[in-house]
């Protein structure tokens, strides 16, 4: 039997003053929120900072949360809004933290050509995703990496499902073009 309380139970307990319920919410969603933000902002330190900020805002705004919707959708909405604000503030920022340069999976000595290729691909992927408009980037990340449905994304971004679908389609098309160099290899 699964004794793990569901999200709504945790929210209700937290609203009644149980701080441990909030801790449980943080533990439950911190990784998903961080990964989503990182995919959008492409900087691990800033992503961690924004992820923590997401829960601080959730804590303070828990009274506004409508239990008819899901908690994670609400958390994603806060995280995406923070990320979009961050991206708007840092539009000219096009650098990656040294810590964020993903090391090739294979040892360079084993196959130097492959290692260089992986590094090039990593840079190309980052550039391709970063050139997407902020909301389109958010839709792409939520759909492709977080596997949320168009309906859930529409609820998070307060848009119609059709608009989300269209934006996702255009995002994929742009990424396909940006990565076309790697299609023929």
């Amino acid at each position: 039997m699964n004794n793990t309380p569901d999200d709504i139970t945790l929210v209700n307990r937290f609203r009644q003053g149980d701080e441990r319920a909030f801790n449980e919410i943080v533990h439950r969603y911190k990784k998903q929120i961080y990964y989503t933000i990182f995919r959008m902002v492409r900087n691990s330190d800033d992503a961690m900072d924004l992820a923590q900020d997401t829960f601080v805002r959730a804590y303070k705004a828990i009274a506004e949360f409508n239990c008819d919707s899901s908690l994670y959708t609400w958390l994603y909405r806060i995280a995406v809004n923070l990320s979009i604000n961050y991206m708007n503030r840092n539009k000219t920022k096009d650098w990656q933290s040294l810590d964020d340069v993903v090391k090739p999976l294979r040892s360079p000595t084993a196959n130097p050509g492959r290692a260089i290729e992986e590094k090039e691909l990593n840079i190309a992927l980052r550039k391709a995703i970063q050139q997407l408009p902020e909301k389109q980037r958010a839709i792409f990340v939520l759909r492709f990496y977080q596997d949320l449905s168009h309906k859930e994304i529409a609820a998070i971004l307060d848009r119609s499902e059709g608009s989300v679908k269209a934006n996702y389609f255009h995002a994929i098309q742009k990424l396909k073009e940006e990565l076309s160099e790697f299609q023929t290899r």
Partner: protein
Amino acid sequence: MKNEHVYEYLIDYLEDQLDADEMFAVEAHLTGCESCSGELDNLRHTFALLNQDRLVEPDSVAWANFLPNVRQRLDMETKAWWQILWPRFIPAVVAACTVVLMFITPIFVPFSSNNADNWLYTFDDYHNDPYSDLSALVNDDADMVSTELLALVDQDEVIDYLDQDDALELWPTESDDLIMEDVELPELIEETGRVTELFDEMDTNTRKQFFDELNKFNLNLS
């Protein structure tokens, strides 16, 4: 759908989002359409590339600190601004208070007490003229304290000096024991030493003039 391209369905097809009828129609079209098949291959390859975009996974310490950091931020945000800033300014405030006290204390001490210890602080201003300085001690607001000190504390040195000159004698008004109970601070002795130095510098007339001044305050002089 058989004769129309199905580009707009291909992403949903790859993501398995089509219902059974749509899926069947798309697959039927793809068997006879090189353009849509080629586009499907391109999309499939793009998806494969995008799936290689790896996450930067924070280390275990960063995850362990996640909740404490959130809690710390909440504490910071619920505190008033002065509660947050106060600890940073404590050293500066302490230093400022110390400086202010250093300036204020000499001003208030002579008026606040007749305690002989405090009288020491009235020795701040010296002039070139020993008589003026000693007279100032007698005539300022702490005059009674200063003259008592001359009488009670430093009598030995003063009397010794005066005895040498066979001039005036200054007699103690209280016993030596009582004097030592009242003023035992080494600093006080040092300060009274400065008074005797001033005596040393006086000529006979100045000395007489000074003791005349002391007499105005009913010192037990003979």
